[in-house]
């Protein structure tokens, strides 16, 4: 019975074997050829479904067409962009890890959240710029223009509430910069932190806040539905696609700021690789690469992104200038005031620790008042063998985390699973068969079919 079961498990493996072997040789051969010869990883520092993610995925599809290798997007999210940018900057400079850099790259290091700055990247191409814009509810007609709001704020500072992103995010900075340019204190409009522009716009429409500062495309659907009204855009000239929205400059305020997105490689990447990618990207942004008969500019326009591209050297200069501008803003005493709200970061955890203490106290009281009844159902005796198995499982996971990057996925996974099978009492040849079936299957499934970037190691797999 046992034998038959194992055999039926193993049989699919033999039909796979030639395929798997062919695959392994292919991967091995390709490793030495010209760039690009294997899948490229595109790191997106923001979550699935957002604007940066959408842009990354579109760029990836066009790059795939142009470079003829798979380009896989990975969302390395969290830490307001720290995670993605720092992983992209510290990747191997072999051209196989691209990063979709965003405006936060020029802000995070000024706020001392990371050491990574634009200097850790080789800029390849700027793809998009979205200037900040200010919105209010459409149905109320509260203010005619920016100056009317400024007058309102001057009379009653601190009564209006605005939103758009987290405290200290780019849109918060844009609003505070406008207030400063208008001669007001940066904190004279309350900032309600939200998790991105979507929830902020929802707050605006439902009456939770009075103003929202975000980019025009982010408010596109609500603009089309006539729910929100744009008061101005913080750009030097009007934005294509939104000809009716006046700039701040037209209304007498000299203030322009916005978000941008562009591709970068780790700093030490060889010029040859940078040039190859820049060449491919140039074809894409100028609409020469066609997909299904449509070019990249067409997609950008339909998604409401503003396509603004700058080649490597120009991009580098803009980065340097923007970094200085944001730096002088972020380090100025007025702004450091803004970043500290009325509630401290540790307030919520303190509340939780309080609740934890109360709960533990109550549990203790109950434990002593009821005696053993709680601990009574604890499981029976521990065997030495069980404890060893327990440690082996822990070690196996640790071994993967420590060794996979060097040895590659296939070797690490195969040795871990083989040793575990053997240690848990499977016969050696059964363990070998299971290993030889499961590891290539997982590799094919995740690595090839689902395009998860599994660790490649020294051998390339």
């Amino acid at each position, binding site marked *: 019975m046992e034998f038959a079961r194992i055999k039926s498990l193993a049989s699919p493996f033999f039909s796979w074997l030639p395929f798997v072997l062919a695959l392994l040789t292919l991967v091995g051969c390709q490793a030495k050829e010209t760039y690009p010869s294997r899948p490229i990883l595109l790191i997106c520092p923001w979550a699935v479904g957002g604007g940066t993610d959408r842009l990354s995925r579109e760029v990836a599809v066009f790059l795939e067409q142009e470079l003829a290798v798979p380009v896989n997007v990975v969302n390395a999210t969290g830490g307001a962009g720290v995670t993605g940018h720092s992983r992209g900057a510290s990747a191997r400079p072999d051209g196989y890890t691209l990063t979709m850099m965003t405006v936060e790259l020029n802000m995070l290091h000024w706020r001392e959240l990371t050491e990574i700055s634009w200097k850790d990247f080789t800029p390849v191409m700027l793809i998009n710029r979205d200037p900040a814009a200010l919105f209010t509810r459409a149905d109320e007609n509260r203010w005619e223009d920016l100056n009317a709001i400024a007058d309102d704020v001057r009379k009653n500072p601190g009564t209006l509430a605005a939103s758009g992103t987290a405290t200290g*995010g780019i849109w918060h900075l844009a609003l505070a910069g406008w207030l400063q340019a208008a001669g007001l204190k940066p904190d004279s409009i309350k900032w309600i932190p939200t998790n991105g522009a979507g929830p902020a716009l929802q707050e605006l429409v439902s009456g939770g806040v009075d103003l929202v500062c975000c980019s025009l495309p982010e408010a596109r*659907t609500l603009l089309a539905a006539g729910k929100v009204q744009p008061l101005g855009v913080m750009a030097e000239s009007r934005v294509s696609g939104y000809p009716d929205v006046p700039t701040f400059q037209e209304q007498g305020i000299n203030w322009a700021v916005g978000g941008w997105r562009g591709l970068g490689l780790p700093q030490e990447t060889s010029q040859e690789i940078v040039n190859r990618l820049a060449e491919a990207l140039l074809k894409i942004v100028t609409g020469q690469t066609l997909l299904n008969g449509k070019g990249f500019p067409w997609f950008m326009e339909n998604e409401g992104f503003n396509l603004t591209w700058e080649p490597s050297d120009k991009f580098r200069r803009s980065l340097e200038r923007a970094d200085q501008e944001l730096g002088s803003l972020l380090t100025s005493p007025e702004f450091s005031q803004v970043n500290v709200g009325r509630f401290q970061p540790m307030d919520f955890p303190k509340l939780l620790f309080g609740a934890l203490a109360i709960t533990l106290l109550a549990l203790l009281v109950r434990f002593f008042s009821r005696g053993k009844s709680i601990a009574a159902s604890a499981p029976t005796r521990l065997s030495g063998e069980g404890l060893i198995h327990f440690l082996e499982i822990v070690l196996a996971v640790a071994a993967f985390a420590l060794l996979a990057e060097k040895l590659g996925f296939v070797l690490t996974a195969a040795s871990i699973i083989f040793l575990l099978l053997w240690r848990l009492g499977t016969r050696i040849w059964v363990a070998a068969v299971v290993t030889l079936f499961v590891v290539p299957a997982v590799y094919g499934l995740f690595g090839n079919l689902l395009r998860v970037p599994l660790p490649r190691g020294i051998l390339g797999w």
Partner: protein
Amino acid sequence: MDFLETSCGCHYREEYWDGELSEILLTALEQIFQWPVLGIIVISAAYGLFMGAIPGLTATMAVALLVPLTFFLDDVAALAAIVTLEACAIFAGDIPTALVRIPGTPSSAAYVDDAYALTRAGRQEEVLGIALLFSVAGGLFGAAVLITSAPWLAKIAFQFTSYEYFWLTLLGLSCAAVVSRGSLLKGALALIIGLLLSTVGLSEVHSSPRFTFAQDELIAGINFIPAMIGLFGVSEVLRNVLWFQNNFRTVVQEGFNQTLTAGRSLLNRLLFQPLRSVFATASDLLWRRKLHVLRSSIVGSFVGMLPGAGADIGAWISFALSKRFSKNPEEYGQGSLEGIGDATSANNSALAGAWIPALVFGIPGDSITAIVIGILLMKNIIPGPQIFTNETQSVLVYGIYITFILANLVLLPLGFLAIRGGSYLVRIPQPILLPVILLFSIVGAFAINGSYFDVWVMLGMGILGFVLEMNQVPLGPVVLGIILGGKLEQTFIQSLTKSDELWDFFARPVAGFLGATCVLVWCSPLLISLWRRRWQTSP
């Protein structure tokens, strides 16, 4: 076909249509009932089932991976693929939940203990049959809600400000703690641990690092997917190797042998017998609990409609309600078929609910519809009220309605096959199964972000889950705390920043209602025990 026409909203709001209705419906049907589109629906159903069944790969990720393909599909086919994919993925999440105690998607976490307890008793086919039938029922109801009430229901959800979201999030969390197995105090403890874990990393409100110990990786915080895999999957592997339970296999094996030897003819053995073992209890229960399914689906649709609250919270709240009004609340957490049924119909009905604000206002109800909005914009369709009045675009809306119904019908046979396939999993001897589960857990945790740190998180959470389980502390609330902690803090601080008055938390009518419900949920165990005592002393 008759069925489709009657349920596709012939009673639809007339001011929009003026007699063109049948024409639009017919065009939509024509566009869907073509071989290529139907083929795409079946393929995406299979893909969804597969992605949902692998822990670590969520329905959202499955849809995101589909985005490049939608460039090449026409509008109706692209949307049909996504609708089918998500409906199947959310059901498929129940398969590993029941079989190996790892929720395939976060939406299945509410009833993981129940489902697994029944599997250990050899009743996994019953559980999955119920999951399948109730999912289909919930999904169909959700589609009906989407069809009939999309425009006016979304208006209610649109009134929500941070106060309402605060209470709603707290309600979701409270439900998880109150319904969980074991005592209220331990549920609360689990919840607080989860919430504290969520505060690790860069706070969303202040963007300042907390509990990061100067580690760059910790700035990103604890990702809930590896945490979930660790808490449920790895802790289970650890427990199993510590006390090798050979009886587990034999119990399941006996159940199987019974089903295998029962039939006489081949057809009987291969088709009727499995059909009976999967659907007999399920269809019976579905008929007996039709009103409960209705209630759960209403809850699911409504929660799904609220931006930011998706299928997972819908499942928790429905599970909590189910326990509160159940005649056998003591079964919940130990293997309650009723609880599984109610929660699983809620998470499937939430899916269609999430499309309502997405279509009507362009504000996504969950992360999947966020991607959908991106795809719609790319195809030059701007979601908004006008989508219901413009003739070519309303064909698309009808296409979405029809596929929601079709997807749930396709799910029935394909889901059955998936259950049969999945059931073979538990026939594999444990010494072989455990290392394979561990490998899948590691790859699943690694896959989500391609990060080794996530593998460490998974291991840490596995050990934490093991320790908590040993002390009968439920794990579900820990996971929900990690997922919702950031949102709770954010809405809390937002509401406090807006105004100094504590009363404002209750001042808006919906907020007041939700707040009161929340307080009631926490007091209910106390009230019920008081009421019982009184009732018993003076009969």
